[in-house]
């Protein structure tokens, strides 16, 4: 573990320039450039809000802001965007960097760090844009917003833990990425992001509770929308489980790394 951290520190310049290049490459030669990074999720929020606000707006108890649903939606989206970006990109990062890994020696652990870093930057920009929207609709979340970095960190560790395991397995069994694209869509709808958990029949509620993202997203929503502190016990459980998961995935990654290049 120490060795990995040292390698990351030694290659910090490469990691930083990779993150920068990654962001730049995604929007190179598009007129609006980095603005697309914010526009895309905002557009998605706008679409959901437009279609669903009439249906669902009334179901948010205890909030008198008439844009409550939009805020609710954005809180969930901020959490989901980071999770799904880290997961999908971790899943394919080894396969996509296959050529580089075959030809050049560098600490392999840089790859997940780059993935996480560039997803974090994206998420931060989305957060900034969201803050702008919140200010526009007159919603100013309270000091409990300070929980947000913690939530983001837990979310990131969780996504990276799952993503790294899937990414390693995907090198050897490429079906994983295909299957996961479908699973992710299902997961999106199994997580209360565009709807409220209250509209779910009680019978299904007990299933929903098994989804770790449900709790994480709910924490984002309570911090951003309700200005309440997250459930500390639940967060601690998810947080330590995520750290454990990341540890296991790094172990798997270390075992698998020598054989990865053989099949890339």
């Amino acid at each position, binding site marked *: 573990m120490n060795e990995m951290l040292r390698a990351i520190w030694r*290659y910090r310049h490469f990691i930083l320039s990779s993150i920068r290049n990654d962001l730049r490459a995604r929007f190179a030669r598009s007129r609006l450039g980095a603005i697309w990074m914010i526009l895309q999720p905002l557009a998605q929020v706008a679409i959901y809000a437009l279609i669903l606000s009439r249906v669902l707006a009334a179901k948010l108890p205890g909030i008198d802001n008439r844009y409550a649903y939009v805020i609710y939606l954005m809180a969930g989206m901020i959490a989901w965007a980071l999770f799904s970006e880290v997961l999908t990109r971790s899943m394919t990062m080894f396969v996509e960097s296959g050529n580089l890994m075959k030809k050049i020696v560098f600490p392999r652990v840089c790859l997940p760090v780059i993935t996480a870093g560039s997803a974090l930057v994206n998420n931060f920009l989305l957060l900034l844009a969201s803050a702008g929207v919140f200010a526009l609709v007159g919603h100013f979340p309270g000091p409990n917003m300070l929980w947000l970095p913690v939530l983001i960190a837990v979310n990131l560790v969780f996504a990276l833990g799952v993503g790294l395991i899937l990414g390693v397995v995907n090198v050897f069994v490429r079906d994983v990425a295909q299957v996961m694209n479908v699973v992710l869509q299902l997961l999106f709808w199994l997580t209360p992001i565009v709807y409220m958990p209250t509209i779910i029949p009680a019978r299904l509620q007990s299933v929903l509770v098994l989804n770790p993202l449900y709790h994480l997203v709910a924490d984002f929503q309570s911090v951003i929308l309700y200005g309440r502190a997250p459930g500390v016990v639940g967060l601690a459980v998810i947080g330590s489980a995520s750290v454990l998961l990341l540890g296991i995935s790094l172990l798997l990654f270390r075992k*698998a790394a020598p054989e990865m290049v053989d099949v890339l």
Partner: protein
Amino acid sequence: MSDALLSVRNLGKAYRDYGSEWKRFASWFGVTVRLRAEHWVLRGVSFDVAPGEAIGIVGQNGAGKSTLLKLVTGTLRASEGMLTVRGRISAILELGMGFDPDLTGRENVVHAAGLMGFPRDAIDSAMPDIESFAEVGEYFDQPVRTYSSGMQMRVAFSVATAFRPDILIVDEALSVGDAYFQHKCFKRIREFREQGTTLLIVSHDSGAVQSLCDRALLLDAGTLVKDGDPAEVMDLYNALIAERENSTVKSLRHESGREQTVSGTGEVTVESICLVDADGAPLDLADVGQPVTLRVRVTVHADVPRLVFGYMIKDRLGQAMFGTNTHHTRQALHDVRAGQVIEYRATFPMNFGAGSYSVSTALVSTDTHLVNNYEWRDLALVFTVSNMTRTPFAGSAWVPPMIEIVA
């Protein structure tokens, strides 16, 4: 441990077929699984490399050269054996690997040097050198997608060699780029070597191997066949290329102490070979410019449809000086019968500089030895040229000038 910079012991690389990926996953956690198949691409390779040595690695495609280099650089992990490297390795294997077409040359240099693990300030201080060595002018600040492949290769080479490594691995990548830049690359490689960098060069070009290397490794089918003097190794390599079914390759020790390689299917063989002067008297030592005749007597052991005789005169380092064959001179023989004895006489002026030369002979069916190789004999004859009567000169070719001084 010896003071070797690179030490390879019984190195092997196998690609494993687990049958099921579940077995592979299980094997990471210490479960012993039965493999369905194991495919060894390299096995039992051992050698040491001392600081400052230049080593050529030759072998046919699939012999395991790239695998060996990847093991040395560390991109592949060995399946068995030991590999110890002391010092930094830089590989010019895949020039321009990791270049982003939308970034400028300068940005790509920063990124690529970062990928090699260099800190930012080292990159910044080396930047002027990299820029001037690449010589791509104002393109250096243009996106790489606007580059020609030659320009991209210039920038890539400049970064790869911006910092002197302890071991430099050069693949045939160097064959790209224009002649001017190639000279520049070789100059830099030579300079590195003088400063103590060890070179590992993979090439099919015997000229490059023999002029740059002081040792060569020949790989064949994943094993190290020979480790020794470049000229000897290249001879054996050429023989291996010609090896076909029921042909033989044997190595004899020539009286000069160098190894002589004879290969071929044996339908026609060289019986005797000698160099004679204008009067027909045998020569070991020839004067510069002296008219001589190379006499080669061959015996036909089995009927062959077409027979071409060729010879190559090589210098001490094994570099080709002159060679031709009876295919080029339109003197190929047809329907040669068993039992015939044929004598070839090649008369030429000895226009070589002072030194030791060897003659290789080839008895083949076409103009290369790759179709039917009846016999290929390296170091069939060794002779010496000495400057006894001419004005002193340097070099291995005698091209006497008429120098006029116009004041």
